[in-house]
């Protein structure tokens, strides 16, 4: 009887501690998400009476070339996920060594994460410019005969924007992997060494399995970030050339905040969210560490 009462007290205490954060989340996250989802099924306008329109907004966006192109481009952004993850693991392994000046390298790789997107836009705008650094390097190395239109050629622009997104995200995942690497008990690797495992075998048989929970979390976050990409698009190309860098979320931003067509923007956001949830669930299912 006493144990049950103690348990109830502990639960009550937990709820009391959670209440402030939950209240804030409810007001500023759950309610807007729920209300926004509802508005996607209406013709809500700031200046007119609202009415229920069912799936009209969804029909509209799927009938819209820009949204469909945007959705395809958002899915193409997913190509970036394995590259980011492999790159981040490689970097983390690299900076996990105790080498002279390694702290400087760790900080340097993290700088893009804390650089504001507007600065990133200006900087990469210069780099990708027809007379910019990248073309200069390419032409000096004779990799190109004429300046490449990194942001003006519709076959290149999406990859240029994806590269900037990758560059911005790499440091963040590197830090997460670095933390995970440093949490791997040293004695496991020492035991493997005593058993005669070389460094490659240690990496595949000990490091990677131990990193698996982090790989799962980082992959999910990376998938979500890829599907939600729009800031880099806004500062670098505004969806051009020929809509080749238009993403689904950029469409939502464009419709909602530039043209105040909120129901369409919300419908597009709901579609993106649904895809995000589906892929996150798939990642959870297939990347979850298996305990034998």
């Amino acid at each position, binding site marked *: 009887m006493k144990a049950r009462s103690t348990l109830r007290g502990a639960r009550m205490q937990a709820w009391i501690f959670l209440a402030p954060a939950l209240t804030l989340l409810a007001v500023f996250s759950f309610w807007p998400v729920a209300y926004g989802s509802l508005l996607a099924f209406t013709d809500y306008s*700031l200046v007119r009476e609202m009415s229920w329109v069912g799936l009209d907004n969804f029909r509209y966006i799927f009938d819209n*070339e*820009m949204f469909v192109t945007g959705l395809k481009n958002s899915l193409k952004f997913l190509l970036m996920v394995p590259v980011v993850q492999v790159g981040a693991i490689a970097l983390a392994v690299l900076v996990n060594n105790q080498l002279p000046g390694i702290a400087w390298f760790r900080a340097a790789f993290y700088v893009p994460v804390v650089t504001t997107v507007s600065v990133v836009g200006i900087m990469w705008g210069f780099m990708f*410019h027809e*007379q910019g650094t990248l073309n200069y390097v390419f032409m000096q190395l004779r990799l190109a005969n004429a300046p490449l239109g990194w942001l003006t050629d519709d076959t290149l622009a999406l990859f240029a924007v994806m590269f900037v997104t990758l560059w911005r995200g790499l440091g963040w995942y590197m830090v997460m992997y670095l933390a995970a690497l440093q949490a791997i008990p040293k004695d496991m690797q020492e035991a493997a060494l005593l058993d005669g495992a070389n460094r490659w075998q240690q990496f595949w048989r000990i490091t990677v399995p131990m990193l698996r929970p982090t790989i799962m979390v980082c992959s999910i976050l990376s998938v979500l970030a890829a599907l939600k990409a729009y800031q880099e698009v806004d500062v670098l190309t*505004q969806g*051009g050339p*020929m*809509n080749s860098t238009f993403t689904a979320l950029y469409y939502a931003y464009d419709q909602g905040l530039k043209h*105040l067509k909120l129901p369409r923007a919300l419908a597009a956001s709901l579609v993106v969210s649904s895809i995000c949830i589906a892929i996150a669930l798939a990642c959870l299912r297939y990347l979850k560490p298996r305990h034998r």
Partner: protein
Amino acid sequence: MKIRNLLAASMACVSMAAGLAAAAAPLPPATTANIEFWTFSMKPKFTPYFESVVRNYEAANPGVKIEWIDFPWDVIQTKLVTRIVAGTPPALVNLNVPWADEYARDQLLTPIDALLGPARANYIPGTLQDLTFKGKTYGFPMYSNVAVVAYNTQIFKAAGLSRGPATFDEQLAYARQIAERTGKAGIAPALSKIDGLFMWQGLSVIAGGKAVFNSPQHVALVQKLAATYKAGGLLKESLFAEDNFPAVVDAYKGGRLGMLLAPPTALKRIEADAKDIYAITGVAAAPLGPTGIADGGWLIHFAVPKGVAPALLPAVGKFALYLTGDASQLAFAKLASVFPTTVKAAADPFLLALPANAGAAEKAVAVGAVSMAHSHTLYVAGIDDYDELRRSLVKAVEAGVTGKQDVQQALDQAVAIWNKKLGKQKLAAPGPQR
């Protein structure tokens, strides 16, 4: 006890003195009207101008309180709609013509015909025409812009050219010649506004409720652009961007562009940032299209949003007439190198007479002032989701100009997209094109 009495006596004296002073001082006039007006992108350069306007008006009109608020241009629309919905709109707001048209269609603006009264005759008729939708006027014109052709005389010399272009065709031919002889781009038209370019050239975008921009004339125009692009005559960077102006000005400042089609304000910027280029800049009037319209017309005005209290409207009208009157417009035009929209201010010698040591900026103002009579804001009005349709047109033109697709085929596809959408719309007044 003595101290307490002394304190009480002192307090009484202070209170009495304060009372007497209050009685002697003149009472501040009771506020009869609070007028809030919004501008966009005027701070910080024009802060002293607007502060002096407010100060002078308040001094001349006791009891009227004026509040000036400036927003960045990309924020003002959201702020405005939010405030109209909240029932607390500003009394006056800076808008451009396409925005005013959209808001007037959504019944978010109040017609100002009654407030204009006899002052209507003070404004250049074309400016009021631009602000008249379905027979009602929706704004007090504040200033306008018109493009001039600024050209780099060194690049021109190297290309064997000696004067500014007189027609659009000549402009394209110049651009090709510049590219051929100097390897630099000749011009950088804003092709994201290709609809305006069509209209400027007398080619309709919509006729009878249907898109018609795939006619042989439209195709020929895009093919001319494609030929110039292929020859290297068009500046490639930001050619189809929503706002290519910063990139174009940068290219001109960097000596990478032969001709710059821009309002005189751009010359001021070049003067400040690239003195060497400014020193070798010549100026010519922008060619008039077959329509007789000068390119780059862009009228800014003050509109009265819906929801302004009817009792306040006479005071708002009076202030708007002051804010857009001859003296205010001329003072602002002198500061900003823009053009006044009142008949008297537009004829001021400041705009037309060239000083002896006139630089390119002064010449641009004088040249532009002559073109002002031909200035109109060119856009397609009255279409829902027009921006989305325009993008599909721009995409088609981009495909055609860059040689990714046959021009006729690209325009046909865009026309099909337009007509599918237009078919679902009830066009109240099909495309009153400006």
